[in-house]
């Protein structure tokens, strides 16, 4: 007995004896593994690029939380791409009740910035594992990434704390970690400097999804026109408050010219390196393929999407074309966001749909109306009668048994006194003809926005090569083009015009217009209105316009209890003709942008942990 007891004790003691405890953890990657090889570096940077605040197809500016740790950006299993910026800024009308995205969603990516700072600080310790050139270009790339995060912060909040070193807790005190806000001007300069560093250090080329030195300059041209316009126009339109008087938001007007010049200088470095896409002879066809052809010489930085596991695809094709609950143009999904008349009026007044005497012009077919419009517009928007995947955009708002009088008088009538015939489904016919067509419009009070509310559908980025059966949710892998050369030319033209450098602006604008199939401009056209309009046309639905009308400080005028319009196609039975009426979009929603929205408020949770973030932005 005693012996057995002793054996047990001895056994316990033996088993309890310590092996060596100081072993590398097996459940996390160590610096040795990450910085030991190019594969490790690529894996690390893949995570950083994945979290980069690129406003791609899946971006949700209303701040949807996917429950997997992502808010707004890079959401897991996101398909409702019609909740986009363009649906809140007047380019389109969509599921939002108005300007629902102006409050932001408290984007505060300092954890992701820390990952970049950690990379910048740690890579040099492992430099022996790589060639010196590789180390230099990787560090350059990290500076691009850091600038990208700060850009996403600056355009939302103005001045925010610049943190360029890894912070440590508890080694540093809480007071040290409560970094105060920098001024907005300091932040834009910091972004510009990081991008200069990236330009000097990055390699000439890189894979399409990662930045090379020209991506840094392309991005700098964007950042610097933002800063320039905030200095020039933000000093005219602003909300008073402590943050403004301390320079935490707003930049003094005399700094505008310097920023604009930096934008021009940055943009010029891409000359000869990138060019506008001109692979197809037909201009409409060509513009469509800019967004689909992976070999485009215009692409500077893209984000790829993939089929398979892990899931990294999107649903753009299935959420911007009509399904009409009968798999009409897609095999699943639904659409909810549609270009406005105000948007297409950037190209053309569309007054031609009305005769000189005020009566609506009669057309033989739906498709006849859009003949002769600018190819770029035809490539950006699907008009009634256009064909996709073998079926037409058969869009009708209704049928008039007969129509007399002027368009204006008809539209002014109250709905109950109009003689049109409407339908809430795609089956009801009148004399053998569908009342609203297979892709047409539900009556205003019907409350269904799964088909167009304006007469238009989006064409940009739609992959026309796919058959109907291949278009469903989570089947699209079209890459998102984050930086393309046309934007760089527009950044340059904008800065040129702001600095009265007319001839250089004309060169850029006409390069774009020639490719677009638009009439060429003259030197006299080089006005502020021209560069703004050109940008709205060329970069439509690419998540630029929202930020553009904010930084130009015109959003509060454009979205001042504004109601948007459509161009509604009707069939006139007695004449066997089509007419088009400019009417309020079917939901008649109100879009109101308050001046305080030019800056989002600093997130409340961050204010609570860091009192040095006060004062909050004006008006909040």
């Amino acid at each position, binding site marked *: 007995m005693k012996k057995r007891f002793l054996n047990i004790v001895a056994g316990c003691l033996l088993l309890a004896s310590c092996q060596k405890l100081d072993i590398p953890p097996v459940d996390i990657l160590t610096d040795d593994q990450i910085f030991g090889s190019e594969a490790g570096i690529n894996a690390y940077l893949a995570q950083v690029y994945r979290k980069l605040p690129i406003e791609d197809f899946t971006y949700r500016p209303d701040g949807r939380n996917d429950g997997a740790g992502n808010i707004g950006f890079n959401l897991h299993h996101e398909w409702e791409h019609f909740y986009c910026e363009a649906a809140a800024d007047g380019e389109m009308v969509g599921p939002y009740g108005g300007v629902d995205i102006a409050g932001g969603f408290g984007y505060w990516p300092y954890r992701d910035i820390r990952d970049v700072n950690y990379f910048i600080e740690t890579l040099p310790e492992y430099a022996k594992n790589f060639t010196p050139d590789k180390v230099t270009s990787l560090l350059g790339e990290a500076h691009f990434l850091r600038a990208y995060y700060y850009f996403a912060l600056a355009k939302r909040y103005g001045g925010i704390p610049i943190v360029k070193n890894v912070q440590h807790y508890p080694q540093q005190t809480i007071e040290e970690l409560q970094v105060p806000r920098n001024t907005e001007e300091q932040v834009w300069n910091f972004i510009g400097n990081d991008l200069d560093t990236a330009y000097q250090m990055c390699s000439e080329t890189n894979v399409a999804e990662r930045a090379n030195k020209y991506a840094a300059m392309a991005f700098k041209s964007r950042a610097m026109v933002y800063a320039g316009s905030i200095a020039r126009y933000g000093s005219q339109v602003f*909300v*008073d*408050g402590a943050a403004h008087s301390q320079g935490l938001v707003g930049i003094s007007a005399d700094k505008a010219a310097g920023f604009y010049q930096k934008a021009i200088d940055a943009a010029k470095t891409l000359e000869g390196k990138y060019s506008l896409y001109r692979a197809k002879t037909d201009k409409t066809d060509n513009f469509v393929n800019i967004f689909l052809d992976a070999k485009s010489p215009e692409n500077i930085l893209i984000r790829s999407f993939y089929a398979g596991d892990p899931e990294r695809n999107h649903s753009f094709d299935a959420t911007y074309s009509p399904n009409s609950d009968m798999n009409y143009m897609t095999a699943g999904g639904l659409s909810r966001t549609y270009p406005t008349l105000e948007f297409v009026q950037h190209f053309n007044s569309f007054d031609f749909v009305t005769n000189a005497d005020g009566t609506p012009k009669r057309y033989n077919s739906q498709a006849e109306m859009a003949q002769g419009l600018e190819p770029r517009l035809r490539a950006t928007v699907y008009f009634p009668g256009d064909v996709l995947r073998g079926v037409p955009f058969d869009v009708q708002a209704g049928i008039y048994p007969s129509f007399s009088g002027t368009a204006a008088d008809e539209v002014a009538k109250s709905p109950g006194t109009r003689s049109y015939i409407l339908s809430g489904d795609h089956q009801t016919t009148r004399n053998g003809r569908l009342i609203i067509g297979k892709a047409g419009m539900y009556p205003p009070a019907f409350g269904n926005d799964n088909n167009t509310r304006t007469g238009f559908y989006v064409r940009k980025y739609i992959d026309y090569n796919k058959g109907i059966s291949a278009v469903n949710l989570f089947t699209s892998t079209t890459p998102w083009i984050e930086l393309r050369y046309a934007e760089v030319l527009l950044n340059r033209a904008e800065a040129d015009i702001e600095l009265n450098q007319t001839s250089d602006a004309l060169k850029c604008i006409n390069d774009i217009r020639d490719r677009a199939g638009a009439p060429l401009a003259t030197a006299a056209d080089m006005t502020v209105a021209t560069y703004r309009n050109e940008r709205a046309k060329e970069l439509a639905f690419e998540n630029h316009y929202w930020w553009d009308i904010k930084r130009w400080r015109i959003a*509060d005028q454009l979205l*001042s*209890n504004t*109601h948007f319009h459509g161009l509604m196609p009707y069939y006139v039975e007695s004449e066997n003709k089509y007419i088009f009426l400019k009417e309020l979009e079917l939901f008649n929603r*109100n879009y109101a942008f*308050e*001046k*305080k929205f030019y800056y989002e408020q600093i997130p*409340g949770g961050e*204010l*609570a942990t860091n*009192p040095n973030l*006060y004062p909050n932005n*004006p*008006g909040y």
Partner: protein
Amino acid sequence: MKLKSFKILSLGVSLLFFASSCVKMDTYAGPDASLSGSVIEDGGKTNVQTCSGNFSIRLEQLSWDSTPSPQDIPVKYDGTYQNLKLFSGHYRVSIHGGAFWPVAPEEMDISSGSSHDFKLTPYLVVSNFKAEMTDSTTLRLTYSLSAPVAGIPKILEIQPYLNTTQIVGPGASIYDFSDLNKVAINKDWADFNAAEKNGEIIVSNLIPGRIFYVRMGVKFDNNDKSSNLSSVIKITVPAKK
């Protein structure tokens, strides 16, 4: 059987309560303080004309934190405000928004039954506001504008507000009668002529047999694009004969 399951259920519930009951007592006082008052036109005795959502009283509890999160009390359409669930303490009280000449924030102790009236000078005073039906469905509104202090922000627009309740104003009005009759102004007060200072607005195609509450407002290009408002008049549109 029923009794047994009830017993098990009640035991379960009480166990749940027991397990979740908090040991540490909350000894903080409840929100027993209050603040109420009126917003009065400076030099006058009448409350300022406002509407829900137009402007608010901002409280910052300095005795809690040097950088407190603000809490706002909306000023009601009759120019009064109150909050009966405040914590006692020392507060900074200020006006947040509105078309008024700014007043400096005040610091005060708030306890049970505290009250404070604000004296504000509107950018424009809307007076002599009259509403008359000129025919069975057409309403004619007349008003006079005067600026107590020169140098006010640019005037953006003048518009009537119609609603079916007396809570009427920007954000609480019927679009077709209100926003569609908006008159764009976009100029400074100094450029107003006598006719514009004593203007009229016509609202047509009103619905017969309805009661509307109507007022008019002048919107400024100030921080929050807020408005000075007239008093509210109730009008009855005659029923169709």
